[in-house]
């Protein structure tokens, strides 16, 4: 029997370190998956661990003082208008050149104004200058104004009065609303009344009622021949130009 085993034993002996290798593999089979799990978990949980919600009026998450410039990361400025509705400006980074400075230079800003019927108007912009006293924001570098009921205005820059909930574009705007797409030379948004005033030349595309069209061959239905008098405009029969009907309230 011995001669048969001899070669095996020889192999075994030569591979004397085999058992160590086996042990190494056995250990690794346990350690490696655990290590992988640990790294995966760390990757997933890291942002949550990192997010610290600061929620007081002027959050100074991390104060980096260089001479007396105050640089705030993740700044948030909140306030309420006369009727108690909340407005808020969030900034990726805010710079005040002196502690007493009343204007803050903001990078990566997002502002939000709550309207009386709890709809909201929003401002997104690359950067802006925010006046802390009167809560007026001069945004620039590409500004997008939005309202929660479907109005969107894009422009290069705009001045936003947060408590008054108005925004005035610095130049041409393009945008869309429930009633159609538009371009204009300038715009003033009065978010509370949901009115967007466009000036400096306006082009707008509206979609008319999509009435199902009868096949071309059909005869116009008889009632189409009715007298068009009922078609008179809402005011009197033939309004002289000066007597513009008041129902739309414009001068």
């Amino acid at each position: 029997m011995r001669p048969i085993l001899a070669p095996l034993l020889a192999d075994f002996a030569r591979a004397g370190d085999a058992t160590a290798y086996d042990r190494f593999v056995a250990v690794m089979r346990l350690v490696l998956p655990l290590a992988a799990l640990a790294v995966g978990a760390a990757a997933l949980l890291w942002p949550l661990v990192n997010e610290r919600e600061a929620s007081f009026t002027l959050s100074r998450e991390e104060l980096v003082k260089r001479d007396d410039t105050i640089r705030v990361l993740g700044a948030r400025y909140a306030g309420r208008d006369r009727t108690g509705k909340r407005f808020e400006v969030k900034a990726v980074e805010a710079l005040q050149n002196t502690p007493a400075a009343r204007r803050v230079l903001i990078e990566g800003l997002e502002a939000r104004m709550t309207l009386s019927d709890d709809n909201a108007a929003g401002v997104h912009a690359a950067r802006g200058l925010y006046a802390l006293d009167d809560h007026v924001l001069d945004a620039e570098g590409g500004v997008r104004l939005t309202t929660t009921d479907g109005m969107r205005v894009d422009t290069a820059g705009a001045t936003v009065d947060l408590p008054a909930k108005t925004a005035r574009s610095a130049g041409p705007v393009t945008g869309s609303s429930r009633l159609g797409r538009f371009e204009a030379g300038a715009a003033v948004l009065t978010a509370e009344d949901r009115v967007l005033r466009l000036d400096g030349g306006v082009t707008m595309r509206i979609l008319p009622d999509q009435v199902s069209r009868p096949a071309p061959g059909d005869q116009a239905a008889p009632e189409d021949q009715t007298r068009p008098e009922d078609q008179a405009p809402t005011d009197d029969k033939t309004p002289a130009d000066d007597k513009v009907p008041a129902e739309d309230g414009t001068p």
Partner: protein
Amino acid sequence: AAAPVAAQDAPPASGEAAAVPDSLRNHDTSQPIDIEARSAEIRQRENQVVFEGAVRAVQGVLQLDADRLIALFSADTDQAERVEARGNVVIRSARRAARGAWAIYDVAARRVTMGGPVTFSQETGDRLTADRLVVDLETGLWQFEGADAAGVSGEFAVPDAPQ
């Protein structure tokens, strides 16, 4: 050259209409309407847009010019049901135009009604005045109506009789 008929022909009995076919026949009223103006106010809450200053609304062949134009939208479909124009209103199609004080484009009824006085001209030199014009966007008929004795009066260019 064709001499227009000098004498004003007797206006037809008041209320009668002279109907003239045109390229607005089977006009597709569902196409978008492009509107240009000096200024505009989008009033989402009232579902209307008020355009002011050299307003021009174009839908395919149909063109409506006015000093002031209001587009009224249906609240649930956000689509324009009615367009009201006021002040120096001009309706144009490919080859003809009518001028009036006000006009209403009722999209669902596919009809444009213009109020007066309405003056109408056509490339052929024909001219008409009336109190009211109704342009039917299905049949393409421009129907002029006179509300009183003045009725509809017109001047038509008659080509020379062949020699």
